[in-house]
């Protein structure tokens, strides 16, 4: 009887699982200049464009079909998504640019050179700011260009929501509700979703999906412009993928050995 119900459901076109492909944007110009980026809207570098196109090709090779896409309000993520949509021939799907998926705000450190900051404050303090779960960097000045309240992009939003600084905890406080209230209803409606976002916003999301504890998530690195595939069952629980690299349940697309090397390599970059 259960089998017949399933058969009837399948004939009706009910979905059994939905797919979410998320990717971090490619290398940006401020990555090259080794500056803290945060909410600054810098563009992709040449290599970033190539990485994004390559990521799009990997997704296209898997044959996924998307119905809706989400990204942040920064041109590096939007451009990454543009390349992905172009390569997968999905330039026609609706795209939502949500500030809730923005990168973590780096407070007063935004715009500063990473090496100079380490020299000034010491490696331990900078590591605490970068890698702690709930200790944010110092506040940015509300009169500076780095406070989003001064940015015309967010003029229509409540200024009290605009962060002066963020930790991974506060990032999760805006990313996870957006996932729950906006993206999950799309999955329930049977749509497949493509997300192009940033390192910390994806970390927050992946922590929620896979139940990763706080100390592990700060050490987890998601390589740039590498598609990460999650599949969800009817109850919107992630289905563990066969090639998943722990502690994630989703799988990366591409050369697995190279990806593992990149994950380990980025860990070494914090020095």
């Amino acid at each position, binding site marked *: 009887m259960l089998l017949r119900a399933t058969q009837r459901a399948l004939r009706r076109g009910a979905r059994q699982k939905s797919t979410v492909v998320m990717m971090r944007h490619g290398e940006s110009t401020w990555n090259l200049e080794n500056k803290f980026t945060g909410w600054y*809207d810098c*563009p*992709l570098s*040449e290599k970033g*464009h190539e990485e994004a196109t390559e990521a799009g090709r990997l997704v296209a090779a898997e044959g996924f*079909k998307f119905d809706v896409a989400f990204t942040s*309000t*920064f*041109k590096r993520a*939007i*451009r990454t998504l*543009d390349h992905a949509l*172009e390569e997968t021939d999905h*330039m*026609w*799907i*609706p*795209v*939502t*640019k949500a500030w809730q998926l923005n990168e973590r705000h780096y407070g007063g450190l935004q715009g500063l050179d990473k090496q100079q900051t380490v020299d000034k404050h010491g490696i331990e303090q900078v590591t605490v700011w970068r890698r702690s779960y709930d200790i944010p960097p110092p506040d940015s000045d509300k009169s500076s260009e780095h406070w989003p309240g001064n940015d015309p*992009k967010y003029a229509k939003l409540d200024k009290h929501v605009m962060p002066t600084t963020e930790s991974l905890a506060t990032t999760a406080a805006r990313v996870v509700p957006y996932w729950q209230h906006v993206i999950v209803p799309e999955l329930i409606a049977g749509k497949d979703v493509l997300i192009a976002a940033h390192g910390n916003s994806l970390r927050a999301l992946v922590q929620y999906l896979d139940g990763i504890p706080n100390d592990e998530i700060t050490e987890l690195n998601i390589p740039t412009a590498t598609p990460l595939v999650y599949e969800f069952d009817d109850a919107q629980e992630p289905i563990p993928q066969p090639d998943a690299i722990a502690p994630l349940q989703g799988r990366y697309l591409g050369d697995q050995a190279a990806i593992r090397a990149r994950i380990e390599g980025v860990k070494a970059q914090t020095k």
Partner: protein
Amino acid sequence: MLRAARLLTRQRPRKAQTRAQHLLVLLRHGQSEWNASKRFTGWVDVDLTEQGREEATHAGIMLKRHGFEFDEAHTSLLKRAVRTLWSALHCCDQHWIPVRRSWRLNERHYGALTGMSKQEVKDQMGEELLQKFRRGFDKKPIGMRPDHPFWTGRDRRYQHLGPNALPTGESLRMCQERVLPYWVDNIVPAMRRGKRVLVAAHNNTLRCLVQHMDNIAIENIRDFEIPTGIPLIYRLSDEMEPIGASTASARSRRTVSARPLPREQREAASMAWGRKNTRKHTGKPDAIGFKGKFLIDAHKRDTEYLANIEALHTFKHRYDRVVSPVEGLPREDVVRECETFGIELPKAWAETKKEIGQKRREAEKAGGIVGH
């Protein structure tokens, strides 16, 4: 206390009535792969050629240079329009605005003619019938059947339409009948809420909108073509009527005065303003009542556009992806690169007015040369 309140709220002399102006910019996509081979494209999803991409980038540069800002963008489901919109938005730094895509802004469906070149149609059906299909307002091309090589019924993006709404061939009137509901339900309410709207679409779709806004007669809209890649600016009143140069714009620039100017002086001021800005109009379309303004400086168009094209060839990776050539790039770099490659400095990078003025003053001091 009541008297005090009445004093505070007394009728002040009215400021010059400014009609609410809503900004609408229409942009036709550039040359597509099938434009170049002169085939009827319709709903087939061909991409832009190199020239088409350059036109899109140039449109973005023009919008940025003239300081246009947008709150919303609308486009069709076809790649060529979406790519035009992307280029234009990235060039004028508005990549973050919400974009809505709709099948209703798609190009007119050419039915069975889709994929045929104009020469083939002329050979098979005769010149007269070809002109009727292309230009007749009510003439519908032969319907596309499911065995057509470019049958759109299989495409996933139109699945939500269902079999009855999916067009198999459209006359211009049918195209208008499906564009106007989108205009009424989405674009007009956005403008009324104060949003500045950019629409990147196709020739026939934009012609339908232009005809609706400007109330152009059917005989005249037939031959009217919107140039590719040049932003078409409309400022609309609350009733969605285009505001011409000689009416509200002149009025809005008028300073507050206790006594209004006499009628003749007002009219003279409007005419002078209109004449001063006439170079932004293309001459011919006015004959049919077209009220949009193309964003070109007519007498400068050829040299600047060509200079931009050359610069685009060389600095393509920058212009397409970073910022406009006028702001954001250091001038020394551009000057150096032009010298290296031996091309003339694009006019957009020419000396600032201050430098020109200084040079002229020095020249006058040196040799008594006066004038340009």
